[in-house]
């Protein structure tokens, strides 16, 4: 039997606000355990939450970037359950009226993924298991999270991966999260079910929780698809359950009772007033949206003539894209800037973090100046590369490093005399060319280049030689 994979994603993203969602503790990652806590995020008796407006703004930005409608009035709700990492034994979240709703994202294969909702909530603490005991660190407790829920629109593992990478890129572009899966600022749960190809009905779904790496997610979906297919092939029913993925064993297994059929007894949070977002505020935030990655990639390809790969790489890091665009505004051929950045500059920005930070010792203006010399034919490409290396090493401008001779180039008279010299010194090549061998021109060109150490422009020289012959 051929099955179709039907998949939905629930993605949690930690917002990089200055302070936590309900108190003024820092949201910085790491730190000595239980040093970034206060009565509010510890839920001490008598403490009360106060909503961080920046977290609301970041949530709205995420919603706008994903094409969502923004609820003008929503509220927070209590989600009640007991676990050591949750000090109040309830999480303040949003249940029936989320901040954002009904968005959409288009993938590269044309598939539309519908975003059902985005809501704001608080993160729990972290459990650390070591030498037979479990410790709790509440630093993370109260960090703002947005939960993005899609409808079950995914039909392949690749689509799920592409979507998640797009989420990561988009949130980084908006500057609202660093979305590092390894640090937990991006986590995803996957809902998977299978159905016979052609069927419209949804099968029974299982939920794989808390995937914190792209590869693990791919493997988990692949495994779970095989597992469910085997069950259905045997004529049995898939159990609706919550699973975790075991990367070392490359399989899923049911999670223990924490997540079993929990009744969260949701009710509106009485300590917080309604969350209102005015149309003015929505428009103000909409105006703050940067050009988003997909739009930027398309523009790079159409407007600058870059390849898909070049556009993808440059648009992947917002600061790199900004750098690139700053250089491009001062030169004629964007490809020149792309080559410098994707080649020599990227070689020095070894890690993802380095590329995100984009600390390049050469300013966009300095790079534009250098490329300008290439484009005005005062310089050849190898000299440019050599100079750029030195500029990156020393942080100096190109004019400081180049001598007048380097830039002198060849005057028309000099070029003419060099061509004449080449013609005179290579009679066989001349004869070959005159009798129709185009390739012989290259030999003459090579001779000229050798004489001037490559300072002449190849196309110009060729043309001159032709004329003279």
């Amino acid at each position: 039997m051929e099955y179709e994979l039907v998949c939905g994603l629930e993605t949690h993203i930690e917002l990089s606000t200055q302070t936590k969602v309900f108190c003024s503790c820092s949201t910085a990652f790491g730190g000595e355990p239980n040093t970034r806590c206060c009565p509010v995020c510890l839920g001490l008796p008598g403490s009360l939450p106060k909503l961080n407006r920046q977290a609301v703004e970041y949530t709205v930005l995420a919603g706008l970037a994903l094409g969502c409608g923004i609820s003008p009035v929503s509220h927070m709700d209590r989600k009640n359950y007991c676990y050591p990492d949750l000090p109040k034994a309830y999480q303040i979240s949003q249940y029936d009226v989320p901040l954002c709703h009904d968005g959409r994202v288009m993938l590269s294969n044309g598939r539309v993924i519908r975003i059902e909702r985005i809501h704001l909530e608080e993160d729990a603490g972290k459990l650390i298991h070591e030498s037979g005991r479990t410790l709790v660190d509440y630093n993370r407790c109260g960090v703002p999270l947005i939960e993005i829920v899609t409808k079950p629109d995914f039909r392949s593992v690749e689509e799920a991966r592409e979507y998640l990478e797009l989420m990561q890129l988009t949130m980084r572009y908006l500057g609202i999260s660093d979305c590092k899966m390894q640090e937990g600022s991006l986590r995803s749960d996957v809902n998977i079910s299978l159905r016979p190809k052609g069927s419209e009905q949804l099968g029974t779904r299982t939920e794989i929780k808390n995937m914190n790496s792209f590869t693990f997610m791919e493997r988990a979906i692949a495994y779970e698809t095989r597992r469910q297919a085997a069950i259905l092939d045997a004529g049995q029913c898939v159990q609706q359950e919550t699973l975790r993925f075991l990367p070392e064993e490359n399989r899923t297994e049911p999670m223990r009772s924490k997540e079993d059929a929990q009744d969260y007894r949701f009710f509106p949070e009485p300590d917080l007033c309604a969350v209102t977002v005015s149309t003015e505020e929505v428009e103000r935030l909409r105006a703050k949206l940067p050009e988003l990655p997909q739009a930027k990639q398309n523009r790079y390809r159409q407007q600058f003539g870059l390849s898909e790969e070049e556009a993808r790489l440059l648009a992947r890091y917002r600061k790199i894209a900004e750098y690139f665009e700053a250089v491009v505004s001062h030169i004629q051929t964007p490809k020149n800037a792309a080559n410098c950045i994707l080649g020599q500059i990227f070689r020095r920005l070894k890690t993802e973090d380095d590329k995100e930070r984009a600390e390049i010792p050469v300013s966009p203006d300095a790079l534009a100046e250098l490329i300008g010399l290439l484009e005005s034919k005062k310089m050849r490409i190898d000299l440019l590369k050599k100079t750029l290396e030195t500029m990156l090493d020393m942080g100096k401008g190109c004019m400081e490093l180049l001598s007048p001779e380097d830039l002198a180039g060849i005057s028309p008279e000099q070029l003419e005399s060099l061509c004449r010299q080449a013609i005179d010194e290579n009679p066989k090549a001349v004869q070959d060319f005159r009798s129709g061998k185009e390739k012989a021109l290259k030999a003459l060109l090579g001779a000229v280049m050798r004489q001037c150490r490559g300072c002449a422009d190849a196309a110009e020289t060729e043309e001159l030689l032709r004329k003279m012959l």
Partner: protein
Amino acid sequence: MSVIRRLHSLMQNRKISPQELTEYFLKMVQEENPRLNSCITIADKTARKQAEEAAQRFEQGSYTLFTGLPVLLKDNLCVQGLPATCASRMLADFVAVYDAAVWEQLYSDGAVLLGKTNMDEFAMGSSSETSFFGPVRNPRNETLSPGGSSGGSAAAVAGGLAVCALGSDTGGSVRQPAAFCGITGLKPTYGAVSRWGLIAYASSLDQIGPMALCAEDAALLLGRISAKDSRDDTSRGLGQTAPLLREPVTGKRVAIVREMMEGASLPVQKAIEDTVQRLHTLGISVTEVSVPVLRYAASAYYIIACAEASSNLSRYDGLRYGHRSESPAASFHEFVCRNRQEGFGEEVRRRILMGTYVLSAGHHEQYYQKARKVQSLLRRELLAALEQADILLSPVCPAPDFPAGKTLADPVAVYQTDLCTVAANLSGLPALSTPSATWENGHPVGIQLMARPFADGDLLQTAYWLETTGTRPPYPESVRVLMDGKEEF
């Protein structure tokens, strides 16, 4: 002259020093507390230090009306460095790490904290008898309960251990003990006073309220503690009410709430009738109004209060603080269950279970959501009634008091007596209990006044004027001595 003003004048005119005043009341507390059990913690060391600070402020001329004033706070209010037990085994060893907003305000004015008062456990009760630290006695008549849950504060003020105290009111817990002990107690409009530092019972119903010997003192205390606090999103603050107390009340319209008169005992009926007569002499008309949905008020209250309480008390698991069982547990789940079973008393456990039930899947709609609808209807009906009248008059409780020990026998019967008081909490309206001129069992019977949101001043003003007709009971002996200006203390 009000007691607070009188004491202030004595200190201002150097007739008595803040230290002497604090010693005076500390002595009262030491002497009377064993009998009344109104205080869980007596903060004598810090009180003496605060009295010193107050004396310095008088020296420097930087004093206010509250400088040197000895007060008591209910033990569900946080004061840094002092236990905040909520009269529960669960928090018996819990020491607060920050100050409640209301204490910040009083302390910044130089008030002196004598101690923390006894109460029903986690504010759940109407008799102050569910306390882990033993029941509170009514100083007017020790065969009676002082009422609850702010019974310790009421008993202390009525007994002259302090001139005023703060309590908390979720379903009547300031007004009912005020009525049972014969003092004045106000539940402010919801949001008038910040709940930062009030250990929560039912967040959408809780308010901190002043308990004092006269309306003016209640007004002065309210004026100091009410404020919009950025830490409490539900707080709005309130303007000063004391300046308007002496404005004439002629022309005000009062209406008796018919449904709240049902089941009222004879003394209570008499108290209402007597009040009506006095209101007439003040030029106030009295009519009657019907609020039919009151029939469901007590049920709606218990559903909503218990639901919120079940959530608010979930944090008490013994992991970070609070009671930890001696018996070892095999799992986190068992650990939590043991700690809570041991840490909470029967009434608290009863309400947590009820609250969990009414929120649970399958029951959520028919209980919790329905109760919220009743709440919404009640507020609408009361606000409509308050368009026909400025103030609603009613009993505080169908009975003038409870005998000591009665409430533990039949909790649900007691729930139903909350009918008169819960309406104000459910609707967010201000409500006040003031003594009438009718006495029963050794104490004046209290009557309740309710008004529109943020019209707390109207209540205090009306109560003040009723006092002028002779309803105010004599002050406790310790206070009378100070008021009469006798030099020997």
